[in-house]
């Protein structure tokens, strides 16, 4: 059953040309230079300090390193971070 659902989704993505984040719970990351970053579809905060920030995802995590990191706003599946961003790393579980 689960396999079937996944294959239907795959089909929808390839045939209908839909963006992947809508169907696969993938994070959508928007960066403005190195000063702002918005991440959608996250699954919670793993670690937060002013130099390193880790966010959980479905099947992975995202690490953001920088200076003076501040969570400007946080919602259930959206987070908006300000500061000097130096590195963004995707970690697969």
């Amino acid at each position: 059953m689960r396999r079937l659902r996944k294959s239907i989704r795959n089909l929808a993505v390839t045939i209908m040309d839909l963006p992947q984040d809508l169907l696969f719970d993938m994070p959508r990351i928007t960066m403005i230079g190195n000063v702002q970053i918005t991440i959608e579809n996250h699954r919670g905060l793993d670690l937060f300090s002013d130099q390193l920030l880790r966010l959980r995802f479905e099947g992975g995590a995202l690490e953001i390193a920088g200076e003076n990191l501040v969570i400007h706003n946080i919602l259930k599946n959206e987070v908006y971070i300000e500061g000097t961003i130096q590195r963004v790393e995707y970690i697969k579980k």
Partner: protein
Amino acid sequence: MHFKLFMFVRGYVAVDIRGNKIEAFMNAAIDSGCHIWHMNRTSPTSVRVFTDLNSFFRFKSILRQTGCTMHVHSRLGLPFLLNKMEARLFFTMGLVLFILGIYVLSQLVWRVDVEGNERISYDEIMTVAEQQGIHPFQWKFKLQEPEVLSRAFTDALPGAAWVGVEVKGTRVRIQVVEQTSPEPKPLMNPRHLVSNVDAVVTDIFVERGRPMVKPHMKVKKGDILVSGITGSEENKHVVVAEGKVRGLVWHIYNIQAPLSHQHKVYTGQSKVRQYFVIGNRALQLTGYGKLPFAASQSDSKRKTIQWRDYVLPIGWIREEIREVRIDKEDIAIKDAKVIGLTQARTDIVMKSGDNARIHDEKILHEKIEGGKVYMKVLFEVEQEISTELLIIQGE
């Protein structure tokens, strides 16, 4: 919803969360629908967050679950501000009264300006203004509409073509545009136009009256040129004769023209004297001694200390005396005649009234005597020859 103004009205708090599992607390809080913003790490074991009041009260149970503690750092927004104000009642009252006072004072008319009046007096305008209720310390809302006021002013001031009333802040501006009526014509008595000189008429133009002469007619001084009596013998009509009559007039002019000309020349030698001035007394400082020049011209400049309009009674005079030589120049007889004639022409044209024109000239006689040229010249000048003569009625 994260509008700053909205949050300010609702009130919010800055909270320090302390503990080892702050991330877990955060996740739990967000899952339960708390609104959190501007979160930053203040130390390895504490985080400062901003949150609204609803979320803040939900924090307690979540804190207990995750083993964190909380400390309120600051209370912000209108609800807390009002609390503070309640504590400082008199200060708040003062603030409110001040704002109220400014508002009330700005509702008054403080000044009435009148512009553009020249013939209508200021007092006259202010009397009308008073009748319309425009005066200092009047409430602005008691005044009528500017258009209504403007009409009232225009009706009340007969000399004004238009009056504009404008309320600008606490100032009322009354702008007056006065009527300009043409200057009344001076009243004139019935009259003839007569000749003021012996002449030959060249041109006659009559506006009113009966012409008595024609061009090329000789007239004597006192002859009527344009009669002020029109109509037939039985049906006489007396008017003010108006018109222009031009005629040729003979002028005999005696000219004297000198055969030499004197003029001053600077030799280049000069001497400077400096004076110090107090009040209206001057003390000479430099340039003593006799003047070595036979003829000289002096030229002095005064300097005073002043600031804007205030002049100090202390000053300085620099006098420069330049040597002058008088040169005598001979003029040829031909040139002297030309100079004399030119002067005579301008003089005659000047004396013969407007639009006079020299028609012809003839040298009758000339002689040279005592370094001068004497000439007798006849000028034939075309000029205005008419003058007024009143008609005395009942004669």
